[in-house]
């Protein structure tokens, strides 16, 4: 069973936490989005955040990066650097901005050496041609991987990805998932991933945080992603298919 305690404190499975969240409450216009949420995340973990629309997944990420006001405490380990891949951009993609423009801007802000530009592209399996390409001409998969590459500049220890594969075709999703898996497993980057693709969550996450109005919970995917539990979270029977495996 996933760890659920009366105080809604839910705990990751690793020692040495990178993040401690205590009694986190976020409200907008008197509507409570996240209520009294407490959990810790271990360094090097791969945490997937799931839940129905409106359960506060993006709100949680925005609170974690300090973009919105909240009550309670959020404590990152001292010196933690994070990269963030948002669900939505604030702009249309029809602007004269190339891959190089984006990466260079992030390099300057992060005071990172220039060679990180190419290294970041390699880490997400992107060719150098995207450097000259305007972002509006990139495919969905290319652009999402460029955003991940951008987030990787400055060598973050923590990567927060908000539905990075939304709107990306199947091969693009596969490439993106593989890149994220490598970052977490081979390079020890702690990853926080919001995803509606439960098969990806099952395959790649070490822990799953499910946000639901009534009962939030945290546990390994094998325990959280059961038909009964998912039905409870989403309020409707849910099944998902594991690629190359039997369905659940």
């Amino acid at each position, binding site marked *: 069973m996933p760890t659920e305690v009366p105080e809604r404190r839910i705990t990751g499975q690793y020692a040495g936490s990178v993040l401690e969240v205590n009694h986190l409450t976020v409200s907008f216009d008197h509507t409570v989005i996240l209520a009294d949420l407490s959990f810790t995340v271990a360094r090097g973990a791969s945490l997937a955040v799931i839940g129905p629309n409106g359960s506060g997944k993006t709100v949680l*990420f925005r609170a974690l990066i300090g*973009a919105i006001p909240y009550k309670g405490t959020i404590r990152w380990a001292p010196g933690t650097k994070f990269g963030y891949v*948002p669900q939505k*951009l604030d*702009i249309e993609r029809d602007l*004269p*901005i190339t891959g190089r423009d*984006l990466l260079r*801007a992030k390099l300057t*802000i992060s005071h990172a050496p220039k060679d990180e530009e190419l290294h970041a592209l390699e880490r997400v399996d992107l060719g150098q041609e995207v450097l000259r390409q305007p972002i509006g001409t990139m495919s969905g998969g290319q652009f999402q991987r460029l955003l991940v590459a951008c987030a990787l500049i400055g060598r973050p220890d923590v990567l927060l990805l908000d539905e990075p594969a939304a709107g990306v075709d199947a091969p693009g999703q596969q490439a993106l998932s593989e890149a994220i898996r490598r970052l977490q497993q081979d390079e020890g980057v702690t990853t926080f991933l919001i995803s509606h693709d439960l098969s990806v969550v099952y395959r790649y996450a070490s822990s799953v945080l499910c946000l639901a109005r009534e009962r939030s919970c945290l546990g390994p995917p094998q325990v959280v992603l059961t038909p009964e539990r998912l039905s409870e979270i989403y309020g409707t029977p849910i099944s998902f298919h594991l690629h190359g495996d039997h369905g659940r």
Partner: protein
Amino acid sequence: MDARALTVCAAMAVAAGLVGCFAVMRRMTLAADAYSHVALPGIGLALVLRLNPLIGALVALLAGSMLIWAIEGKTKLSTEAITGVVFSVALAIGSLTATGEELIDALFGAPGRMTIAETVFALVAALAVIAFILKARDRLLVSLVSTDVAIASGIGVKSLQLSFLVAFAVTVALGMRYLGVLLMGSLIIIPATVAKRLARSIDAMFAIAIGSALVSTLLGSWIAALTVRPSGPIIVAIAGALFFVSLLKS
């Protein structure tokens, strides 16, 4: 035109081109036009108090920037909507406080010699705006793409937003002498829109916007001096012509 006026016009055009790139990319185009009207009550008040209208315009624009920024921080309203409200109120107050020929000059620009004080102010202000945009371009770019990415990268988004609005206000004030505040918004928007159509990268966008603003301003000022007509409308007409030429690109 004398060398002093040419230098000021060139500096103003470069500042307008650069500020315009981010204004256009942030979809502030209509707001940019309305923004220039915020100067009106300041100009009116300065004329009543027998001060240089430029001082009044600058104070009103800076106050307007602070107000827009403060309301933006408090509400979820867009810059465009807030500017629309502030602009309408400013126009109403301005029309009550000012009338006369000097006001028309301030709104539409007037040819003539600048004082040394005006020249120094214009050059310093233009250089400050240019330096700000070039120094902050990466921070502006990342916060343009995603405010959340900017915050996660440690950028002080709110103070950056205020700095940009102030740079914008100063640029509008800069244009008061030759274009008039009503037409300065156009010099900020049109060259940057031309650049957005033609460029494939940020550097190219900067270069095309600056080039278009310079051509419009210098050619327009020259024609205005030859024909003894107000410079503002001619400058904007040339910028508009460049935009229509840019439409030839498929």
